[in-house]
């Protein structure tokens, strides 16, 4: 099923968005690599635009074991405003604990481990979302503020997530990438869900960005 609605963006606008997101995510990865003190192998990110009402279907189709996924959600406000949803697949939280805080990971169990996993996902999500949106809006000459991030489980919040955060007429910029952490690959999905006004601003900002190079 084709869920993208790239029709709102021309091919060139999508290419510009792809490049700007690529730069922004490169910055975010660098910030994360600095925190973990590890080398992250980046893959070519895939960028698509999806109507927000079709996002649940897109997630089901794209993400294996999506019901076991954890999502870090963070809102941002500026001329570009919306909600960032960073989706971590099953097991990613534990993998990240192993890399970030192996001692605590070994000694924790049960609820303690669940709390540690949640804190780790929030920490990593906050860095990736903050650096990515920060660089994106810096390149496009905007400034945004953020809400504190929260972590939600897809399965338990499926209906409320999409009812409370996502309006049907919003547009999701979807980005799929793979982080390679020294032999361990973690699929990462970032969705930026924005209202029509922000998408309109984004199109204009992408053209302004390119004017420097005309």
């Amino acid at each position, binding site marked *: 099923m084709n869920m993208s609605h790239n029709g709102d963006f021309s091919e*060139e606008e999508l*290419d*510009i968005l*792809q*490049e700007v997101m*690529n*730069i922004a*995510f*490169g*910055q975010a*990865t*660098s910030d994360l*690599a*600095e925190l973990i003190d590890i*080398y*992250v192998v*980046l*893959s*070519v990110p895939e960028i698509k635009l999806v109507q927000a009402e079709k996002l649940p279907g897109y997630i089901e189709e794209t993400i294996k074991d999506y019901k076991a996924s954890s999502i870090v959600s963070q809102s941002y406000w500026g001329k570009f405003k919306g909600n960032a949803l960073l989706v971590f697949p099953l097991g990613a939280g534990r993998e990240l604990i192993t890399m970030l805080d192996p001692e605590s990971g070994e000694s924790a169990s049960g609820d303690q481990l669940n709390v540690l996993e949640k804190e780790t996902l929030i920490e990593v999500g906050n860095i990736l979302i903050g650096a990515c949106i920060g660089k994106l809006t810096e*390149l496009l000459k905007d400034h945004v503020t953020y809400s504190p991030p929260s972590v939600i489980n897809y399965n338990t919040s499926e209906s409320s997530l999409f009812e409370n955060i996502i309006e049907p007429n919003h547009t999701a910029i979807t980005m799929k990438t793979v982080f390679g952490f020294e032999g361990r690959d973690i699929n990462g999905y970032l969705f930026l869900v924005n209202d029509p006004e922000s998408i309109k601003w984004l199109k204009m900002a992408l053209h302004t960005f*390119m004017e420097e*190079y*005309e």
Partner: protein
Amino acid sequence: MARKLLIVDDSPIARKILKKTLPKEEDFEISEAINGLEGLNKFKEISPDITFMDLTMPVMDGQEALEEIIKIDKNALVIVSTADVQPKSIERVMSLGAFDVVKKPPKHERIKEVVFKAYEKINSGGQ
């Protein structure tokens, strides 16, 4: 005499931006490639004076293409142009023989600096 320049990047926008940031007073004969493998083949075909190489690309990434190019010509002037700004990535490509690294999006002044630095190396017979 126009210098032969090869730009290897899967993004048409990145290639366009790079072309627009080249020093306007200089004359270039520009070739383009959309992945590392195509870039490697173009390198063999045209022997460019300077190669700009992205890192994250499909088919063959820039790091592998850089390694293959350096095997062909250890003095090749390959400037890595990348969004991957991790210090370890930069160290890694420099150790593989990259001439310099330019962070995306490139700026006019930085491109001018690195191109003229490459010219100096060419003129001193270092290539």
